[in-house]
């Protein structure tokens, strides 16, 4: 046997020994490193082929094309993975609207794509690598070469011949009457704000001046009402007018006013006690006389046969308080 013949015999024996070893017909038997090889879609076998076809090869812009990948001679057709074209920049540059559709057999993958622009394109088909277990270790990944299909995308041609009517697609509100301008400015003019500012300052001022002009006494009343005890007394007198027993209320109101406003001791209740308490505080006699008169009238109306009505008593008390407060201010 010649040297060449011996060489062939050695190669045959090595190949036969490899072939006799149990081939991994499932991707599960491959190591993780082998499974993660780039452009490897789980195809195992010897002589695996990958063919790409496109239908139609000439398409109008806006229409879809169907791309088909057929993988043949794989030992594990059920395990084959679909190459994901939607993630590849070179495909995204040409197509949009990626949709996957099932193939007619396990080794067949279909894609529906929508070209973005008109023109002629050679499809950038990805490399298809497969695992050949019958080859020696380290050389088992092979590439299945395939011809790249071409497509031609033609621009939309508006045919002069009558064709099917396509209705406009838009929300219904777009087909209502177009909104007409109301004439009002989109935002208030600046002078509106200045006018509001001016009126905010002038209207209350004018209102206060007008009210004081119309109610000269009321201005004084407003001033005296600023004291809490006076305000309470006047409000209580107003309520007493509408109450069932104005006279009883007037006595209480007058006493409370004296206690809160003039610091009279709260223990004084009768006209004499009140008079003594105020005298001890150093009140002038004319004021003492007024207080005594009011309280005496209250008693007279309540317990005596006086002709004075409760309402006139309320009015007298109010005048008394206002006179005192007016004198005080």
């Amino acid at each position, binding site marked *: 046997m010649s040297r060449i013949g011996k060489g062939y015999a050695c190669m045959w024996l090595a190949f036969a020994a490899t072939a006799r070893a149990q081939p991994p017909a499932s991707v599960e038997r491959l190591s993780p490193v082998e499974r993660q090889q780039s452009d490897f879609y789980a195809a195992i076998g010897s002589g695996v082929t990958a063919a790409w076809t496109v239908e139609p090869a000439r398409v109008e812009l806006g229409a879809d094309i169907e791309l088909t990948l057929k993988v043949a001679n794989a030992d594990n057709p059920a395990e084959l993975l679909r190459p994901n074209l939607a993630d590849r920049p070179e495909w995204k540059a040409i197509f*949009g609207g990626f949709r996957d559709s099932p193939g007619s057999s396990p080794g067949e993958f279909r894609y529906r794509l929508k070209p973005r622009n008109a023109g002629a394109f050679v499809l950038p088909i990805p490399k298809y690598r497969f695992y050949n277990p019958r080859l020696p270790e380290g050389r088992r990944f092979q590439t299945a070469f395939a011809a790249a299909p071409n497509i031609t995308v033609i621009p939309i041609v508006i045919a002069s011949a009558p064709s099917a009517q396509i209705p406009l697609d838009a929300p219904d509100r777009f087909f209502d009457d*177009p909104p007409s*301008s109301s004439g009002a400015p989109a935002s208030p003019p600046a002078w509106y*704000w200045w006018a*509001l500012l001016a009126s905010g300052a002038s209207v209350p001022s004018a209102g*206060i001046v007008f009210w004081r002009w119309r109610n000269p006494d009321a201005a004084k009343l407003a001033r005296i009402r600023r004291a809490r005890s006076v305000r309470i007394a006047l409000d209580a007198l107003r309520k007493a007018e509408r109450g069932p027993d104005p006279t009883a209320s007037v006595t209480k109101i007058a006493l409370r006013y004296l206690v809160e406003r003039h610091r009279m001791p709260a223990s004084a209740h009768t006209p004499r006690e009140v008079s003594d308490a105020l005298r001890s505080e150093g009140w002038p006699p004319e004021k003492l006389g007024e207080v005594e008169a009011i309280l005496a009238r209250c008693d007279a109306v309540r317990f005596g046969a006086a002709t004075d009505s409760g309402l006139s008593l309320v009015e007298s008390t109010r005048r008394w308080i206002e006179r005192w407060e007016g004198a005080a201010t």
Partner: protein
Amino acid sequence: MNALFITLVLIAGKPAEATEAELADTARREYLLGVEARGDARVARPHFAAAAVAYRLFWERGSRTPELAESWGRAEFLAGDSPRAIAAAHAGLRLAPQRAGLQRDLETYRDAVIAVPEAKPDERLRPPRLSGVRARVSEWDLFGAAIVAVSILSIGVMRRFTVGGAWAFPTAAVGVAGLIVVGGLTWERAGEAAEERSAPVWVLRSDEVLRKGNGESHAARVDAPLPRGAEVREIARRGGWLQVRLAGGAIGWLPERALQPIP
């Protein structure tokens, strides 16, 4: 069709001669003719295109109202020009950011823009829905609230200095609080408007690649070209190119010729 062509020539060719009333009438008439012909897009679109031209001229003459922007945007959209429709909606929203009709229309126009699946979050193209004080509260709303607040304050002050009363001060305090709220919202609106002006919106007229530099020789910043109708915000300009920011935050360069400004 001839009549339509003549209308377009009359309007677009002699804009100076057409009065505003004529423009408004033409726009409305063409729009309604388009609506009548909506069953056939080939017939309807030219009418909407004519209406859009008239609305655009009307707008450029200074008759700017949110209602006009709404009609104009719809006419552009129905004529098949989404970028101009988006620009019209933005123009109207500058005047009345709170107008719900314009906000809704803008979302419809954006839906029509082909959305490319983004590879990264910063390459997101669709801007978020309008938000903030300007999108909710109009200047008229604030003015109305200010009138109410000033009235309450005036009543409180007048009450305090006339008949007095226990509730004069609380009333005035409510008025002051109302004015503070109105002032705060006005301040916030002004801030939002200033931010809007600092980065104006542009709309892509045609598909265009976003590049890393201001020239065709620069590499693409985003793999897929940006679709027609995509909205970007201007950061800077140089040599006929705009540095822009996408809604997701990615920054790149686009040629100015491919961009539609907001009128």
